[in-house]
């Protein structure tokens, strides 16, 4: 049977696309409100620190950030190709590495909270 690494890339990509569609708009809205000077109560240090200090909160934040990073990396790879940047192996290596480093970094930051 032919083996392909595609499912490994595709599963987090599809999961990330769904997470981005459902979660990212409302998260952007929250930080956008904060940017306009109306900081939502949930973005205050005490509240957010308590949420990220909780095991379930850590898992939710890590899931959203890591899956979104991976999905964005995969989409950016396709976008680069579509805009005529044909060095696909290089682009893929850089973007996937960035997504992996970003995911590990967020896990470390969350464990420190």
């Amino acid at each position, binding site marked *: 049977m032919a083996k392909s690494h595609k499912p490994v890339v595709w599963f987090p990509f599809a999961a990330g696309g769904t997470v*981005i*569609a*459902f979660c990212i*708009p409302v998260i952007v809205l929250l930080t956008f409100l*904060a940017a306009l000077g109306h900081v*939502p109560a949930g973005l205050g240090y005490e509240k957010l620190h308590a949420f990220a200090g909780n095991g379930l909160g850590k898992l939710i934040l890590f899931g959203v950030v890591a899956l979104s990073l991976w999905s964005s990396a995969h989409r950016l790879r396709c976008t680069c190709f579509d805009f005529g940047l044909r060095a696909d192996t290089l682009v893929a290596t850089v973007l996937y590495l960035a997504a992996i480093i970003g995911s590990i970094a967020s896990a470390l930051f969350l464990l420190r909270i």
Partner: protein
Amino acid sequence: MSRRPLVREVPPTTWYFRHPRYLRYMSREITSIFIGAYCVLLVVGLQRLSAGPAAWEGFLAALRSPASVVFQFLCLVAAVYHAATWFNATQKAMPLQIGEDFVPGNVISGAHYAAWVVLSVVVLLLAGVF
């Protein structure tokens, strides 16, 4: 007689100007740039949160810079556009069959929109926006 396959020249950097459909495809592709950049902002935010109250207040203050306001507005537009096109595509990507019949496509997309609105309102409630 030698076989001469048709080779159609496709300009690699300007092909999407050939058809409005390609432009709509590319407009969705571009949202990944904003969402990718926003993900980096999220990772930075987690780092600031883990560094203590002063660092977090500094992060919130940095969010208020004019460049950040513009960036986040563009991210909001990109995120909503990505979500809407993603939900519109679900009816094609995962058609649902019950018995002999397929569930109508707009029911599948509509259910996604409804779940999206409910989830967003719940998150806004939990975050104390209302």
